[in-house]
């Protein structure tokens, strides 16, 4: 496709029009849902979702640690506290993310700025994932050892396998997110 062909395809592109019948129906449904406030933007959804994650992290991990580990399995108290600390870490991380999403109006900004903000957020999220995996490893490792001592070696083997697989997949995802974000930022800086 030479530059002339690009110009040809551009002319054809301009002559394209949307399928009026299909879109009229879709628009009617969409506008009704939006007016009834049943459809919200992804940014709003994401904030709501991470707020729920934060509450779950703050409440669920300590409660599970106390009832499941401390009361039922009679694990040491420090392990229970470790889980509580983990819950607080993940909860705070989720709240930071909520704040970060809400601090910028991605839609109203010039596209370059929106891309720059989005890239920084991807980088931040990638770092947080890497730290999250390390924190998760630190808080679950003692549980595996504890279960091993209770005569359940399968849990230790399964746990180690899960940690290794999780770490590999997490690292791959971290690297791809970081590469993509850096590429976008480098392009903007150029």
């Amino acid at each position: 496709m030479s530059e002339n062909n690009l110009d040809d395809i551009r002319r054809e592109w301009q002559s394209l029009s949307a399928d009026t019948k299909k879109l009229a129906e879709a628009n009617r449904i969409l506008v009704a849902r939006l007016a009834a406030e049943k459809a919200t933007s992804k940014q709003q959804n994401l904030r709501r979702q991470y707020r729920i994650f934060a509450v779950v992290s703050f409440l669920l991990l300590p409660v599970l640690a106390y009832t499941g580990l401390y009361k039922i399995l009679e694990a040491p108290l420090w392990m229970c506290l470790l889980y509580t600390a983990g819950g607080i870490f993940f909860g705070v991380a989720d709240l930071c993310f909520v704040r970060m999403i809400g601090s910028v109006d991605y839609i109203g900004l010039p596209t370059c700025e929106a891309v720059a903000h989005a890239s920084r957020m991807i980088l931040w999220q990638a770092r947080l994932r890497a730290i999250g995996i390390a924190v998760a490893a630190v808080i679950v490792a003692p549980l595996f050892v504890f279960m091993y001592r209770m005569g359940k070696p399968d849990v230790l083997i399964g746990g180690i396998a899960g940690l290794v697989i999780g770490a590999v997949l997490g690292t791959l995802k971290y690297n791809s997110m970081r590469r993509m974000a850096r590429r976008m930022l480098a392009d903007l800086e150029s």
Partner: protein
Amino acid sequence: MTESMARQKQFEELLDTYKSLIVKVCYIYSSPQATVDDLYQEVAANLWTGLSHFRGDAKVSTWIYRTAINTCITWVRRNRHASLNTSLDGAMTIADDTAEGIERERRFKMLHDMIADLLPIEKAIVTMWLDDKPYSDIAAVTGLSVANVATRLHRIKEKLSKRANTQEQ
């Protein structure tokens, strides 16, 4: 007519007027992870939210381009919205049954595949260029200078030509 009904009517008219523009942007940014359907709904939701803040400082089309492009760029797959009853994946009449229509579809598919690898800003520039928008409009949407838009567009065209040649070989 109540205020909310008037707003609804105004929005319906806006979507109707700019539907081709929005669908074209969604088509350019669509991928297996983000269908035209998903993107169109998200753009509409953001236009609806932004409508009350739009003061008319910029041209309506510039505002719509910016909202549509930024929405597509920052789109992330999380929970799906309740889906529309109408699929929009064929919302543009690209092909008909004639040999010419099939050839045109093939060429647009090729264009889409070549554009798919471009960076988000490059896609924004090429989308508006395809629609014959002046450099000043592209600059207003992207936040780049007019000179920068021209330089980038020149590079993008070279890149696309090279990719097309590789694909044809």
